[in-house]
């Protein structure tokens, strides 16, 4: 049997006002551009806000990783509202609790700790992306 791999859609928070929103965005870029560039696809949250048909279809047809910057959980809520059935939710606040020393500061330009927190978070998500991306191999992944 041929096992087809799906692309994993990554949707970060678009939070503009606080450093943790920037961490979510940086983690998504690290994941999609450096760690798993060939199996991931970044989708802008603003498109889901507007109900863009192509983006909704992409989210509905592929497994997703939503990266939330704060407790409002905009990314994961909008992925679900857009039809995302297999969604793993990652929270920057949880990553920060696991790595208390990495105090992110700065918005337009994250400080070194914020950049490192984003990298660590992206690295922690690689296993999830690999599991989600392999068709039928997603057992054990955490679905929100």
């Amino acid at each position, binding site marked *: 049997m041929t096992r087809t791999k799906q692309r994993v859609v990554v949707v970060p928070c*678009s939070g503009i006002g606080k*450093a943790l929103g920037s961490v979510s965005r940086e983690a998504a870029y690290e994941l999609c551009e450096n760690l798993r560039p060939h199996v991931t696809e970044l989708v*802008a949250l*603003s498109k889901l806000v*507007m109900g863009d048909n192509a983006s909704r279809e992409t989210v509905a047809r592929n497994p997703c990783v939503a990266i939330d910057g704060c407790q*409002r959980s905009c*990314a994961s809520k909008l992925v679900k509202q857009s039809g995302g059935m297999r969604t793993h939710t990652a929270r920057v606040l949880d990553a920060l609790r696991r790595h208390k020393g990495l105090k992110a500061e700065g918005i*337009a330009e994250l400080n070194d700790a914020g950049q490192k927190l984003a990298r660590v978070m992206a690295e922690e998500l690689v296993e999830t992306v690999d599991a989600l991306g392999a068709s039928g191999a997603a057992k054990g992944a955490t679905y929100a």
Partner: protein
Amino acid sequence: MPEDPERKAGIIACSGEELAEGTVSRLAALKVLDSLRPHDTVTLCLPLFVAGGSEDRTFARLHPTITVDGCDLRCAARATELYSNKPAVSLVVNELVAERQLGKPEGRRQLNDAGKQAVEVTAERLAELVDTVLGQARPVSDAAGGAGAPAQREKGGGNCACRSGSAA
């Protein structure tokens, strides 16, 4: 949700993560909020119109808003109108870049020189629009704080709707 009853302009950037122009919209909005018009502006997170409470929609109904979009999809402008109120002014980075005959912004994570120039131009245009919608007239260079002023929102924590750093 900003609690200050003083009249301010809300800036809503698309922040489109897929495109360099989305990054331009985000950085230009931050430059206005941090440096060019820190006392006259607040930021609203676009996704909160859908995923958040009613506070953000209410703010955008009561205060003039300026949307800044990266591309012709105009997600920020359309969503603001759909979920709250018609923006006072809408700005599209692509159009401004073409109008000013700037180079194409590239590098959604790290902007190229053309992208950085687009940030400056977009931010200055946004600042002018803030003055217009608030009924003020002054050159960009007269803004409180000036271009080199440090960011104030992060410390104060009152100008961001999502408060994404408050629980850290």
